[in-house]
């Protein structure tokens, strides 16, 4: 193993996606604050850049819209597991967030009068559910790319300090006070201990635990797993969203924006089957409902192949939109179809299957991004989280499309601001004695014999998650998944790294990522097993109804060695009373 280095910063941000970069911009606004961003990818490679369809905000540029409608849709979309004040902040601040991005140069698509264009998206409605509303602000179908570029540009302008290709491996605590992070420098294999008054985790999603996913290779949930091992709880991990329209077999995302522009899902008979499942919103019902409807169609033998025993699929029909609209509003989607399916979406329907997309759960935080330690709301000091890895919670049991990008900007900003103020009056804590504990772990990994075992474990994990912790779940399958994942966690501890080089040892990083995914898979399966109801994206065949009496609370999960421990956290229901969820 390499040498070790020490650094000192007031604030350290881990992750350079939309959430991390926005927080960095806020934190670096305060003169005298020394802020550093570390990221395992070059910043502009972050998965925020893959977001396609848009960012939701009630600008009302094309028709009447109001933030409170947006907030209500968010709460209902999340099947009432959303914290309602958080949802109100999300919807209120979204408007300013979009204007702010626009003024910083984001090239939104425009309407004739020169204002930002807006399109329809799933679950976003006018007047508390009357009909679909045009709320999603977009830049063609590369909205995330433009957000990431714009924020990175602003960070360059503000001379934010970046540590690119530094991989977070540990987070340091003195009791409940966070005192820094430990990272592995990819280029040298050296270990860096970064002493800090405050740390913000923005490491993004963890969809790579599933076989079919829209997520990047880098989405391995490192920040969550590292915190979990340091005794920090995670919230609502049983809720994982499947996006209805992934390219068949590959999982590459086809944005909901296609349906927002008028695209229709069809079964083998050519029927618009969503008419039977969501008569008002049809194809623009929330994702959990559409993904379930697709599964039902396939189970009933109405998939395109007509055989539920095989990996069947359905069609997303956008042919009636015409080539001009497709090329203008959805050019990347058209390009993906040509590249990966040799198909022209103006001529042929797109073969789609649900794809694992977004973790609603994550690191529990308060409204300022401060990490929560207990069910009663006790906080860590100097520890923040924002973005997909965090759980505020504004997505509850099911996220609405366009709300993640809003989450990044609104809560990335709030967390960054709070952190900037905090470090001005805070002191440095002590670096604990075991700060370099991970160095030994890495050194050991390099001594074990290497074979293709890691890949076998990875494949098993992805298959278990897909088959047993997927769209529909049963107690029996979940219990099996928990047992099997426990076994895989033992097995992975014995896997060695074949690559003994110090610099650019990706083999070692992939093993660390696999270990992280296994811990999160276990937590996800175990959380799903204990929630004996169906809510949002968590659909239990053996408990098919929502059960507000027993389960209208957030799940907190701790990992103590190999065993999973649960706690509860109450849901903020201060604005709207839970109602049955029909669309």
């Amino acid at each position, binding site marked *: 193993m390499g040498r070790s280095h020490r650094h000192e910063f007031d604030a350290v941000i881990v992750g350079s996606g939309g959430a991390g970069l926005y927080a960095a911009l806020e934190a670096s606004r305060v003169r005298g604050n020394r802020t550093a961003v570390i990221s395992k990818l*070059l910043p502009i490679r972050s998965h925020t850049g893959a977001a396609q369809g848009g960012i939701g905000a009630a600008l009302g540029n094309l028709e009447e819209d109001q933030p409170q409608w947006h907030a209500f849709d968010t709460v209902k979309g999340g099947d009432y597991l959303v914290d309602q004040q958080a949802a109100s902040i999300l919807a209120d601040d979204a408007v300013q967030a979009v204007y702010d991005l626009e003024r910083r*140069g984001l090239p939104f698509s425009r309407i004739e009068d020169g204002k930002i264009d807006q399109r329809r998206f799933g679950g976003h409605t006018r007047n508390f559910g009357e009909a679909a509303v045009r709320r999603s602000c977009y830049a063609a179908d590369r909205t995330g790319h433009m957000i990431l570029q714009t924020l990175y540009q602003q960070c360059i302008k503000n001379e934010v300090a970046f540590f690119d290709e530094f991989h977070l491996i540990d987070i340091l605590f003195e009791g409940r006070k966070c005192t820094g992070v430990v990272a592995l420098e990819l280029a040298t294999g050296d270990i860096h201990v970064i002493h800090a008054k405050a740390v913000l985790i923005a490491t993004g999603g963890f969809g790579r635990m599933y076989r079919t996913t829209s997520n990047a290779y880098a989405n391995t949930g490192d920040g969550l797993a590292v915190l979990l091992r340091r005794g920090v709880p995670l919230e609502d991990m049983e809720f994982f969203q499947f996006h209805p329209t992934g390219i068949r077999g590959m999982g590459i995302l086809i944005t909901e924006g296609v349906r927002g522009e008028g695209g229709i899902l069809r079964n083998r008979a050519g029927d618009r089957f969503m008419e039977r499942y969501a008569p008002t919103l049809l194809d623009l019902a929330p994702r959990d409902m559409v993904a379930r409807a697709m599964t039902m169609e396939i189970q009933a033998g109405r998939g395109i192949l007509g055989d539920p025993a095989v990996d069947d699929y359905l069609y997303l029909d956008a042919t009636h939109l015409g080539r001009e609209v497709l090329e203008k509003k959805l050019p990347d989607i058209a390009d993906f179809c040509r590249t990966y399916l040799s198909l022209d979406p103006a001529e042929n329907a797109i073969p789609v299957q649900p794809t694992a997309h977004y973790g609603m759960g994550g690191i529990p935080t308060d409204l300022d991004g401060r990490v929560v330690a207990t069910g009663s709301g006790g906080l860590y000091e100097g520890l923040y989280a924002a973005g997909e890895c965090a759980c505020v919670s504004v997505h509850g049991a099911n996220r609405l499309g366009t709300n993640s990008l809003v989450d990044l900007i609104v809560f990335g900003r709030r967390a960054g601001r709070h952190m900037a103020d905090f470090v001005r009056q805070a002191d440095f804590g002590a670096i604990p004695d075991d700060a370099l504990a991970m160095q030994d772990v890495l050194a050991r990994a390099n001594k074990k014999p290497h074979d293709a075992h890691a890949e076998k474990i990875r494949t098993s994990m992805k298959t278990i998650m897909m088959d047993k912790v997927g769209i529909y779940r049963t107690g029996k399958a979940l219990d099996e998944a928990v047992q099997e994942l426990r076994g895989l966690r033992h097995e992975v501890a014995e896997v060695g790294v074949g690559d003994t080089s110090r610099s650019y040892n990706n083999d070692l990083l992939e093993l660390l990522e696999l270990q992280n995914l296994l811990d999160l898979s276990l937590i996800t399966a175990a959380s799903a097993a204990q929630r004996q109801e169906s809510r949002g994206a968590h659909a239990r065949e053996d408990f098919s109804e929502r059960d507000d009496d027993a389960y209208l609370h957030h799940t907190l999960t701790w990992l103590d060695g190999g065993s999973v421990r649960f706690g509860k956290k109450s849901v903020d229901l201060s604005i709207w009373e839970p109602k049955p969820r029909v669309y």
Partner: protein
Amino acid sequence: MNIVLRIKRYNPETDEAARFQDFTIAAEPADRLLDCLMLIKRTMDGTLSFRKSCAHGVCGSDAMTINGVERLACKTLVQDVAEEEGAVVTVEPLRSLPVQRDLMVDYTRFFEAYRVVKPFLFPVAKVEEGENIQAPEVRKKFDDPTKCILCASCQSACPVIVEGKDFLGPAAIVQAARFVFDSRDEGIAPRLDVLGAPNGAEACEGHFECTRVCPRGIKVTKNINLTKRAVKQFKEKDD
């Protein structure tokens, strides 16, 4: 079908010089070349090094030279580069950028050039409330360069750079063009020293190789030519 990936290998810790290594694998015509590289890495040789992330052509991590042409491995299907059973596909790192290990190259200088063009908005107007107004036709003028993912394919393919001449590079100018033609930005003025320098836009010799390889379909040369013209007009106006 079976294909052979002939991969250029180099590990500065152990190798004196770069060498080619063949890997024979079973692949489907519709597999991505990135899938093939992952298969090798995860089941045959864990030391094989390359960058990757999104796996669908939007993050810019895995630009490399495939059968002599710059491409993203995740946006190249086996059928695009291997026609028959046993076909050999040659995979090398990008040209002109220093090799770090195997297919990984050092982007430090590439991003330095990016920074130099000041790739951020210099607002012409301070908007107090709401948004800037920009008509769709005006927005369209700089749509093309907004697609750039900074993959460096164009940089690698540029004959001017391959010959070692002093040139800022196509990607940096594309990034500048994204602002120069944005009605909300001050345009050339804050970037004149860089774009108008001898190694700026005018150093482009118009080979069109960048345009040919750009995985985002950006008309790179056209953007450079438009920038050249804008610099010229700006200088004339200033005289």
